[in-house]
Structure formats: C-alpha cells, structure tokens
C-alpha cells in the first residue's frame, strides 16, 4: 500500500513537471520581447546583448527552465508591477486565502444542501418531489454562475437589502461579518455543485438501497431513518469524494467568475487583471497555483480511498 501511494506521488510529480514546463513556455510564447520592454525605446545593441546575458536569455530553453524552476520552488516568483508587490507574498497572503475561503464555503453549502436533497429524492423516488429536484438539478448544472450571481445581487442585495452587494471581509478577522459577506458568493458558486451532488447522491443511493446489507438492516428491524442515513449514506462517501476531487477544476474556475461578480480580491481577480495588464509572471503564478491545487487535491482523493472504504485496504 505504501508502494502504491509512492507510485501515485511519483506520477503526480511528473504531471506537475509537465504543467510547469507549459507555464514556463507561456512566458516564452508571450508576445513582446522582455528585454525591449525593460530597456524602453532607445538602446544600443551592446546594452541589449549584455542584459540578455545577464538575464540568462541567451541560454538554451532547458537551462532557462531549470533556472526558472529552481527560483520558483524557492518562492522567488518575481514582482508584480500592478499590485506593486512580490508575486509570491501577494498570491499566498492575499489572493489565495480569499479563494480558499470562497471555495470551502461553497463546498460546505453544496454538501449540506445537496446530500439531503439527493437522499430525499432517492427515498421519494418517482414522486413529484423527485421530479422537481431533478428539474432543479438540471437547471442548476446548466445555469451560468455569473448570471446567477448578478440575479442574487439584484434580488437580495438591491431589492431586499438583506446582504451586502459586494466586497470581502476575512472571516479570520471578523468571523460573523466575513460569513455575512460570503453567503451570496458562496451560494452562487455552490449552485452547480448542489445540483451535481443531488444527482449523484440520488443515483448512488438508489443503487445502494438494493444491496443485501440494506435488506439485512431492515430485517433486523432497524428504523428506516437509520437504514437510510446510517447504512445508506455512509456508502455515498466514496463516489462523492471522487467526483468532488475531479470537479475541483470546475470549482476553481467558478471562483474566477464569482470573484469578478462580487469583487473579491482572490486568485481569479489576480488572473484576470494579469491578462488585462499583460503581467505574464502573475499569469504564470496563477496557472501554477491552480494546477498544483487541483493535482494535490486529487492525489489526496486517491490516497484517501482506503480510509473511506475498508474493502480497499490491502490485506496482509
């Protein structure tokens, strides 16, 4: 089992290597000559050449990559001219916490709403409730999140004035105000996941309920809520964790849009403003962070299976 885990980790590192080569290539492919940009409009050929040697840009691609990767791992990500800050500090201390807060809020919403909805539709299979939640789930997966965000702002913040229109307050500094500011963005981002989890839970639970151990539990005379919520729901954990890991990408790209709608200063805003300001170093940092997050979480998902399902633990 340890060997298996090590194999997965090695595989992950290879994927990460590919991503890093690609995002380094992004910098190389970016339009504009970095030396020309640094020197301005008037310069001599000599100063051009000397700066090129100084920056190591006359070296072969792989040497440049190794050089860059070394600095990147050490946290030397360059400076952002728009944010006027070290990209590393800016990304980790300011942007990432916002994105992670938003993501965890929506994930919590999605599980707290999606699982019960799915269980209820599975138990009340083929009733009006089931049909209604199926329609809601379909709409939820197809509805564009940024439109939903604007509609929520219009209804809850402008019309009813229940919630703030936009802005971010860190829940680590002011817990209740932070949560208050996170409800609309969290709801916006979680809709897709609520819908997806509802569908998944329903489908899985219907299958689980036909298993012999459910019949056995019923035969023992256990109350039906216990059969469903204890014996049944426990078996949803694994497919749920798998799907959530795979759909993390959707969550991450959803944060980009939600952050723009609600003006939250996270990774998404960092990326968009980097594109508009042509800050390729910031782009690169954002791409690497997103990929590393996705790859890391999926590695954790892979490694967590034996803990979720005792049947997968290797027997000695």
């Amino acid at each position, binding site marked *: 089992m340890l060997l298996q885990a090590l194999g997965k980790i090695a595989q992950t590192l290879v994927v990460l290597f590919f*991503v890093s080569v690609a995002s380094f290539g992004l910098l190389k492919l970016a339009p504009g000559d970095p030396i020309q940009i640094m020197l301005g409009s008037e310069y001599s050929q000599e100063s051009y050449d000397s700066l090129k040697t100084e920056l190591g840009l006359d070296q072969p691609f792989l040497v440049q990559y190794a050089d860059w990767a070394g600095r990147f791992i050490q946290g030397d990500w360059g400076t952002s001219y728009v944010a006027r800050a070290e990209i590393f500090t800016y990304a980790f201390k300011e942007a990432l916490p916002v994105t992670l807060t938003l993501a965890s809020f929506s994930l919590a919403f999605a599980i707290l709403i999606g699982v019960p909805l799915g269980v209820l539709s599975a138990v009340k299979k083929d009733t009006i409730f089931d049909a209604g939640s199926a329609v809601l789930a*379909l709409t939820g997966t197809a509805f564009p999140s940024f439109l939903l965000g604007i509609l929520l702002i219009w209804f809850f913040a402008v019309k009813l004035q229940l919630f703030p229109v936009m802005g971010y307050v860190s829940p680590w500094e002011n817990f209740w105000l932070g949560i208050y500011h996170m409800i609309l963005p969290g709801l916006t981002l979680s809709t897709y996941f609520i819908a997806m989890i509802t569908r998944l839970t329903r489908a899985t639970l219907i299958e689980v309920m036909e298993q012999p151990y459910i019949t056995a539990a019923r035969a023992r005379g256990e109350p039906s809520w216990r059969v469903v919520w204890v014996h049944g729901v426990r078996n949803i954990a694994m497919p749920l964790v798998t799907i959530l890991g795979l759909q993390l*990408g*959707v969550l991450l790209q959803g944060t980009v849009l939600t952050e723009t709608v609600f003006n939250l200063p996270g990774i998404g805003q960092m990326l968009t403003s980097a*594109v508009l300001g042509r800050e390729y170093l910031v782009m690169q940092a954002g791409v690497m962070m997103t990929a590393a997050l996705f790859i890391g979480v999926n590695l954790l998902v892979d490694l967590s299976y034996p803990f979720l399902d005792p049947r997968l633990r290797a027997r000695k």
Partner: protein
Amino acid sequence: MSIQTPEAPTTLPPAAPLDTANRSRRSVFVRRPFFTIALIVAVAYLVAAIFAPQVAPFDPVQQDFNVMMQPPTAAHLFGTDSYGQDILSRVIYGARFALIIGIFAVLIGAAGGLVIGLAAGLSGGGSEWALMRLIDAILALPSLILAVAFIAILGQGVDKVVIAVGLSMIGPFARTVRGDVLQVRVQLFIEAAQLMSIPYLRVVWRHVLPNVIFPLAVQVTIRISEAILVSSSLSFLGIGVTPPTPDWGLMIAEGRDFVSFAPWMSAMPGFALALLLIALTIVGDGIREEFDPKLRKDP
C-alpha cells in the same frame, strides 16, 4: 492508475449494437418529450442566428442616445442599454457569436483530442504513459483557466476566443478518444486485420478510426454548451470578445454596473444564454443516452 483517468475496461463492445429489430422503437421525439422541446429551442436559436439581419428589429450596434437604458417597452421589447442600443437585437445577433464560437471551438478541441487520444491509445508502453501524463497535465487546469492563459498569449477578439476555447478543450476529448481506442484495439477484427498483414496505418484508418469517430461526434454535440459557457465567461471577465460586439457575456458584464436600476441589461442576454445552455444540455443528455451503450437502461 493515473490521477484522474480511469483505465478503460478491455472487454466492452466497441459500438452500440443496433437493436432495432427486437425493440418496438417509437420515434425518439415521442419517447423523449423534453428532448424534443429542447431540440426545438436549440433549432430556434440556430435559425435566429442565421437570419439575424431579418429577425432583429434594429441594428445591434446602432446607438441612440435618446432612448438610453429604457426598460422593456413595445418598441424595444427587451429594453435598451447604456448606449441606447436595442437589447433584443443584440441578443439575437449574440446567438450568432455564441453558436459560431461554440461550434468552431468544439471542432478544434475534438480534432486536437482525436490526434492526441489516438496517439496515446495506439502507442502503448513508455510513450503512452508520457502522453497520458501530458493529458493529465492539460486536465489539471480547468478549461476556463486554460482559455484565460491562451488569451494572454493570443490577445482578444472573436477568432482568438475560438482558438483559446478550442485548445482548452483538447484534454477531455483526448481522454475519451484514448479510452475508445483501448476498447477497439483489443477487438478480434483488429487482430484479424493485422493477421491479414494489412498495413498498420490502414488498419487505423479503416478499422480503428470509424469506431472512435462516432462516440467523438456524440461528445462534440454534448460539449458545445461547455464551449459556449467558457467563451461567454471570457467575455464576461472582459478578456474575450471586445466591445461593441453583441456578445452575451459582454452584455451581462456591461449590465452588472447598472444592476440596481436597470436589471434587464444583464438579465435579458443572461436568460438567453441560460435558456440555450439548458436546452443544449437536455439535447446532449438525450443524445448520450440514446447512443451510449453503457447508459442504455434496457439491455
């Protein structure tokens, strides 16, 4: 096991058996009423997009400062925006851009995915492993973020958005193609063809490709909605199509600043987009359930 690529089982039949004989097949349109309605909606969008100049009551980029930000009236059914442009006309022309971008982007993604997926599925050994890790690497970035990265290199504009969204969709296509290739590769007719010493490329062309193309075509129809969503997301972020192009994402973004007193500016193009996406999702689900043997309920 790779991070996210389930290894394809090797014993599944390659294509759907045509069981028309033993099943009393009523028309798809009767059996699936929602599919039919969704298809009609999607076709209506297509017609509106093609005949936009005939259908739209106004010029989509004609500015009229006398009628700025008017709520829906008889003259302007969807209201007007902050430049006095007729929103209904812009929504109709927007269908054009949405469908053009969606369809062409998906075709680029499918073509790229076909090449990489075929290569990965057929090569085997170390190069297959490396190609799969490459696909994993592409899949590690969500399509919107990949598209943002490509836009950073390419710049903005309709053509750039098509390329960026298309390239960002290669990953999922490559994975499905590779899965299908793995199933076909072990079939008896491939072995037979190879035993008859038919040249390898010819076996690929005549025997592997046809069995891969069909599921790919199904995937293409399913993923058009994703391409439209990603492209309008780019426009919404302000880095996709440039104004004054009547693009839905762009219109929603423009309306966002006026949401407190002119909510129709975002809502009208937004609902046009949402309705198309929902319709395309239902159509896609229907097509997948009809043609994917794994999802057939009746064996």
